[in-house]
């Protein structure tokens, strides 16, 4: 499975399962839509999203049964999928799915199933299945950011939602958030550096995520960067990072515009739909007062109704598949800007220390202090990491938008094809009727 294909899966969220090339991920995908199977195996999955019963899913029993089932699925899949899987070089696969609502006296929240399959030696087992809630993802992201300050950390979906405006427990909201969390985790797992982060390991495999203790050692790394806040003026940001900053500014502006256009189109479409529905109704009420024209008019009404359905589907697909990707990239840009800022800070720190050292050197001719060189190394390391991440990000972005826009075109084509079919069938009906009339006339 190529990297591109995996990303493709994550982006579209609508690719048929058959297109997923790797046996492991394919098996995982097949698991999720079958709660009835779960009832048979684990006997504890009947709690759906709606009934709000807290369900403990990371029990050893369910993990092992799942493990067994996955093994089985792997075997089953091996025949059909192997030729494709042979080209696979990746070794860490993660999926977020199966949201569940938990109601306790203190709070109500949603957990998501995080399933992992891996052959990496850093993991003790090849399979894990844990349940995590949003704040766990948030914890992971903060840990990643702190421990890997030189890298671009993919964004999480927005944390805060306006109460009253958005129902946090609505199926739609949970579904959208789940897709975004899945995307986030896949992006982290695909990253050549981030995917080896011990926090990720803990997040994916620990039965209980001990967030407070969790690898306290590593959190220190980030803090040194955080302390260097302002104070120094950059002498010169290298041109390539300037260009990145400018690019991000323009790109986020354009994305904002595209988002506004897309939303405006959805609004226009929904108003159009309202009128179109009434339009269809008028035709059918006209049909009621006609004799010969009854069938043609009813036919028109039927075609209009079909078009309404197709339009509704188009709008729904666009708001479910198109808008979230735009949102993710808006947040992604923010992450990117954040890393750029941190790089600037580390450059500033280095330059500040260098300046001080040079001053001192002129006074007492001491050799260059070690920490200045360390700082220099850090800046260079930062620059290298950032450049690598930037390239990755650019190529991801290109793939994602290619897929996003092609998807938009496909959805529109599909919409028009459905409408066309509806009108064509009407013409067949009307012309049939006409020839019928003519033959009856001559008879």
């Amino acid at each position: 499975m190529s990297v591109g294909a995996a990303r493709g899966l994550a982006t579209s969220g609508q690719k048929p399962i058959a297109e997923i090339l790797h046996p492991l991920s394919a098996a995982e995908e097949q698991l999720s839509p079958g709660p009835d199977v779960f009832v048979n195996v684990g006997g504890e999955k009947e709690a759906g999203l709606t009934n709000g019963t807290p369900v403990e899913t990371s029990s050893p029993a369910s993990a092992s049964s799942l493990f067994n089932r996955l093994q089985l699925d792997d075997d089953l899949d091996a025949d059909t999928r192997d030729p494709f899987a042979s080209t696979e070089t990746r070794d860490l696969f993660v999926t977020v799915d199966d949201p569940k609502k938990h109601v306790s006296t203190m709070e109500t929240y949603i957990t998501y199933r995080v399933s992992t399959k891996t052959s990496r030696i850093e993991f003790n087992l090849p399979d894990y299945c844990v349940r995590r809630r949003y704040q766990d993802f948030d914890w992971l992201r903060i840990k990643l950011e702190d421990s890997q300050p030189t890298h671009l950390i993919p964004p999480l979906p927005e944390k805060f939602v306006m109460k009253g405006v958005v129902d946090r427990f609505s199926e739609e909201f949970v579904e959208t958030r789940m897709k975004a969390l899945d995307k986030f985790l896949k992006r982290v797992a695909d990253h050549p550096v981030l995917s080896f982060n011990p926090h990720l390991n803990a997040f994916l495999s620990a039965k209980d995520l001990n967030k407070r203790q969790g690898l306290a050692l590593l959190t220190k790394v980030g803090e040194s960067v955080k302390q260097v806040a302002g104070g120094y003026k950059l002498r010169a940001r290298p041109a390539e990072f300037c260009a990145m900053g400018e690019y991000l500014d323009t790109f986020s502006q354009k994305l904002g515009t595209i988002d506004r256009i897309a939303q405006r189109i959805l609004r226009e479409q929904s108003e159009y739909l309202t009128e179109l529905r009434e339009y269809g109704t008028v035709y059918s009420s006209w049909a009621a007062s006609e004799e010969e024209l009854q069938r043609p008019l009813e036919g028109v009404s039927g075609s209009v109704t079909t078009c309404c359905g197709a339009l509704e589907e188009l709008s729904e697909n666009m708001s479910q598949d198109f808008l979230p990707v735009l949102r993710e990239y808006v947040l992604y840009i923010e992450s990117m800007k954040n890393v750029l800022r941190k790089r600037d800070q580390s450059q500033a720190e280095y330059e500040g220390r260098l300046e001080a050292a040079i001053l001192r050197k002129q006074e007492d001719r001491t050799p260059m202090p070690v920490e200045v060189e360390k700082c220099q190394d850090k800046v260079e390391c930062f620059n290298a990491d950032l450049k690598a991440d930037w390239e990755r990000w650019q190529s991801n972005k290109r793939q994602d938008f290619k897929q996003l826009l092609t998807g938009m075109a496909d959805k529109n084509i599909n919409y028009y094809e459905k409408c066309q079919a509806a009108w064509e069938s009407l013409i067949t009906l009307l012309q049939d009727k006409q020839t019928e009339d003519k033959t009856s006339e001559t008879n």
Partner: protein
Amino acid sequence: MADFGSNEEVAVIGNTDLTSAESENNIINTMVERGTSLLNKMEINVAEAEKRTGKNTVNMQETYTVYLIETRPAENVPEGGTPAIPDSLWRRYSDFELLKTYLMVTYSYIVVPPLPEKRAEFVWHKLSADNLDPDFVERRRVGLENFLLRVASHPVLSNDKIFFHFLTEEKGWREAVLETGFQDKVDPRLKSLSAMLRVKNPDKRFTALKHYSDELNIVISQLLRVRARVADRLYGVYKVHGNYGRVFSEWSAIEKEMGDGLQSAGHHMDTYAASIDDILEEEEHYADQLKEYLFYTDAVRSVCRKHELIQYELEMAAQDLAHKKQQKEELVTGTVRVFSLKGMTSKLFGQESQEQRESRLAALEQSIQEGEEMVKEKNTECQDFVRTAWEDIERFKEQKNRDLREALISYAIMQISMCKKGIQVWSNAKECFNKM
């Protein structure tokens, strides 16, 4: 001119009473546009429109539109030695209006074709409601031509002399119309709605027809209103897509590999947004077809009203006759069935003299006879009206069903072509996206 003289003769010869069998033939023939009517002998079109400025009756400066009517003998005219050079003349919309009013008054039993709208109605925001707007004038030109063709293909109307005059002689036409005195025939009661006429024995067919035309009027105007809103919204959907064109092209400026694809996809989005103008302009033609039938409902209602009036007159005459007959009976038998002042006086002051009675009886007899004549006359008038009107209504119904079915088919074809355009543009855009 000689040519037209002969044409006119042919037309007049054609103007004989139709037997029912013949008229049935005619109904079928008019379904094929060129039937036995005037259209067989003459080609008619409204070739162009022109804006003019002049002084009106109250000496005010006004701008108006005139329409060029071209006529020429059809090629299959038997005495075809002369080449067919179109004869042309200019008419204003108000001339058409006068012609229509004349036809409606003169042929009250016929569903006279309506004129295109005087002012643009059921417009959506982008459509101009200005009477001098070129698009509006063009659509009206088409509508006026359609009106002339409808009259010219009508089995009865096509043979009208005034109509022929309207087509062929620019000068003196208005005077000729007014000379016919048709205005005197306008029954004021027709205008002051039929609510005041309480017909005792309404013809069920006409009642149903009136009811139907009311319904049709309501449903078509509702349809046109909603369609205008649908057009408005559709326009919005397309035009907002046009914004993608701009933003894609701006975005492409900062991209390397994606740039070209984005840029050209942007052009396709522009094309998409622009395509709606033509689509909706074409759809306006469909709206005009519906409008014609919306206005036709007035013509149908006018025939119904006329029928009610005739029926009412017949009933009044019959009532009057019955009254007189009762009087006579009273006089002859000397009995007074109903209490009346006359009865009282005769009782109080004794019987009238024989002479007086005789003369009153004679006068009554005379009056009854007149009344009987009247009833008979009204009866025939009414029967004739019902027969001829129903004939024309049948013809109208056929025409309506055929026209509207065709209109629906062409509407569906329009929708298909819109879908095809949409598919085309999005496929082009997709190709560009794929190259990114």
